[in-house]
């Protein structure tokens, strides 16, 4: 069964350092999403891509967060500089265009900022 791949699985970084997460969606899925999930809460959308274009980044803290999907396939989410409040699970998901069947999620990256 096709999966959304994410790496690393865990990341510990010191505050003020830079950190990056990688996501490889299911082949053929045009839409890619990055969500942030604080422990004990529901995921919140950070950014949505349609192919290589950003469709929605209204909740992305653009002063420190950036995301790219250069060739419309895999994607990287970067935080620079990391802050203590960025500690969370970062989930990547993908879907076909306007897919009514729901998203397929990756296993996530657990970020701890110390």
């Amino acid at each position, binding site marked *: 069964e096709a999966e959304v791949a994410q790496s690393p699985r865990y990341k510990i970084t010191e505050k003020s350092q830079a950190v990056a997460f990688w996501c490889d969606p299911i082949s053929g899925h045009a*839409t890619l999403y990055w969500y942030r999930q604080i422990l004990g809460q529901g995921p919140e959308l950070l950014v949505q891509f349609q192919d290589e274009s950003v469709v*929605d980044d209204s909740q992305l803290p653009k002063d420190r967060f950036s995301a790219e999907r250069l060739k419309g396939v895999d994607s990287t989410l970067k935080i620079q500089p990391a802050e203590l409040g960025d500690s969370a699970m970062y989930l990547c998901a993908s879907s076909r265009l*306007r897919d*009514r069947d*729901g*998203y397929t*999620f990756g*296993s996530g990256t657990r970020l701890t900022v110390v």
Partner: protein
Amino acid sequence: AQTVTQSQPEMSVQEAETVTLSCTYDTSESDYYLFWYKQPPSRQMILVIRQEAYKQQNATENRFSVNFQKAAKSFSLKISDSQLGDAAMYFCAYWETSGSRLTFGEGTQLTVNP
């Protein structure tokens, strides 16, 4: 903005019994979809069941069924014959066809007691 509310932070059920998880949502749209996702300790978010708003018939998937009350904007999940493997965090989510953002509730932690 659309909101999804899960008023039960935690629920427990005895193995083989039935449990119902509650969800309410707020929207002015008429065309949308509702989902229940399961997130076990392994962290990957898994789609459990989906419901189209234009369908009056409640969706069912094996031991999982929903009670969709469109006028009341209520979407509860019933798990019958609960199994130990059902223990997880359950998220209710909303998706409208005019946009592509999947909005999640805060989640309900389900414990299944042997």
